[in-house]
């Protein structure tokens, strides 16, 4: 890998731009995604920016259980994102269709239609979890740019509200919440 490629990988990891797409979601995840970009959580310190056009974006964030009406749009938008790209499925809906399972107007889950790199579980996931998922997607993006090999989808751990040491967090991988309680 020459210097130029190394520089490109570094910049991709440090400045991923997001495109947010609502595939029939209930707004819960969409609002939490916006909340993660605002001063309390401030995902912009990762270099993340919410973009209005998929052609400017590196990471596609999809919420919702993928309705019939959204399938074609999701495929089109996925095609419009320039490679290398990563897809983050936000919430339990795109992963499993959640409580809407068995609905006849759904065509989910999302990985039937496009390859998904990071699943962020939760209904809806907390902004901390979304930031963690986007950071993971940025790493995948840099790896993908360097090696061009397929990468397995990652399921992020569930992030609960900050426990402030009140409970014994048993999962060793459980990320420490970065939120500060007022």
């Amino acid at each position, binding site marked *: 890998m020459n210097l130029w490629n190394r520089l490109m990988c570094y910049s991709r990891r440090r400045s991923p731009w997001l495109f947010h*797409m*609502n595939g*029939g*979601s*209930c*707004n*819960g*995840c*969409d*609002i*939490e995604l*916006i*909340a993660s970009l*605002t*001063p*309390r959580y401030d995902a912009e310190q990762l270099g993340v920016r919410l973009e*209005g*056009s998929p052609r400017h974006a590196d990471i596609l964030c999809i919420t*919702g*259980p993928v*309705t*019939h*009406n*959204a399938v074609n*749009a999701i495929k089109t*938008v996925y095609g419009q994102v320039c490679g290398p790209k990563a897809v983050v499925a936000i919430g339990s809906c795109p992963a499993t269709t*959640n*409580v*809407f399972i*068995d*609905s*006849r*107007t*759904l065509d989910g889950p999302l990985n039937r239609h496009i390859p998904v790199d990071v699943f962020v579980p939760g*209904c*809806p996931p*907390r902004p901390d979890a979304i930031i963690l998922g986007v950071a993971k997607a940025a790493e995948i993006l840099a790896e993908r740019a360097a090696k061009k090999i397929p990468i397995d989808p990652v399921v992020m751990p569930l992030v609960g*509200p900050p426990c402030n040491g009140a409970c014994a967090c048993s999962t060793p991988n459980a990320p420490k919440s970065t939120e500060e*309680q*007022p």
Partner: protein
Amino acid sequence: MSYKIPMGPYHPALEEPYKLDLICEGETVSDAKLHIGFNFRGIEHLAESRNYIQVIALMERVCGICSNIHTLTLCQAMEQLTGQTPPPRAQYIRVVVAELERLHSHVLWAGIAAKLMGFKTMFMTCFELREKVMDILQAISGNRVNYSMNRIGGVNRDIDDPLAVLAMVEQLEREMVRTVIPIFTTSTTARLRCAGIGVLSNRKAVSCGVVGPTARASGLPQDLRRAAPYAAYSEMEFDVPVQQDGDVRARLLVRALEIMESCKILRQALTKMPPGEISTGDAKIAFSAGTATSRVEAPRGEVMYSVSWKESSRNPSRVHVRTPTFVNMPAIRWMVIGARLADTPLIQASIDPCYSCTDR
């Protein structure tokens, strides 16, 4: 010559997928068509295959912004069918959660409206303030979005220390008075951007049958909390803010004043909260056959549920939902006619549309 500009369904100015076809002559909009249905998940049909516990969790996911209102309305309708009355403390807790939800919804709307005005600083300020409301909701329910507070015959979680919550609410109110309210009521930027655009006259508002803040901004003093009190609203004292202008600025002012009224209701509910049980605690629930309806004033207007049950069934035979956006959205057409093209994103956002509620 007129030409058509499609806006959406996936557009950066829209929070949710829906399509607005604007028929323009030059820069002036002469007509508009609205296409919805991108969020259609078939929830009403799914509800018929869920039992009375599962249907509450399902209906909570109709909308991620007003999730509590949907379960509240559904539980009130199911309580009519089961003949249960929630204890007074549960009624007060319902009022507290509903008003906190109204606060966060209005502040969220203010943030999005500020973003569409091009007032990005205000957007960030509003969302920072909204996090404080979310802190209170998280302290009460443990969750940020789907609170799962309501059950048949009461609520699931108690407010252990109402006075601690009251202290948080008072701090929030001070911040609102200090930052958000003055900027929206007196700032020149907001006034110049919003005054006189998207006018919905009083007569048009009556003929469209609009509800909620959209109706109150067009001079219709309707509020179900006052007209048909539910939960503990009959014991609260509050004003219903009404503006006569019917433009975007009037809707902004109505919501800003409602934030203050919500703080007032919260203060009363938290100080007067009676002791006692939080639910009837019946493990066995028997539904009588029939149909029950329930109406509630959501942040966007009136929500109505009509729940039907068959004899000795565990599942509802029909759950019908009428959401406020369903009646408010035809009014967008009358608001944008004659408006400038650049104003349409702000005008369509001024009714606080929620298409995931409407499509279901």
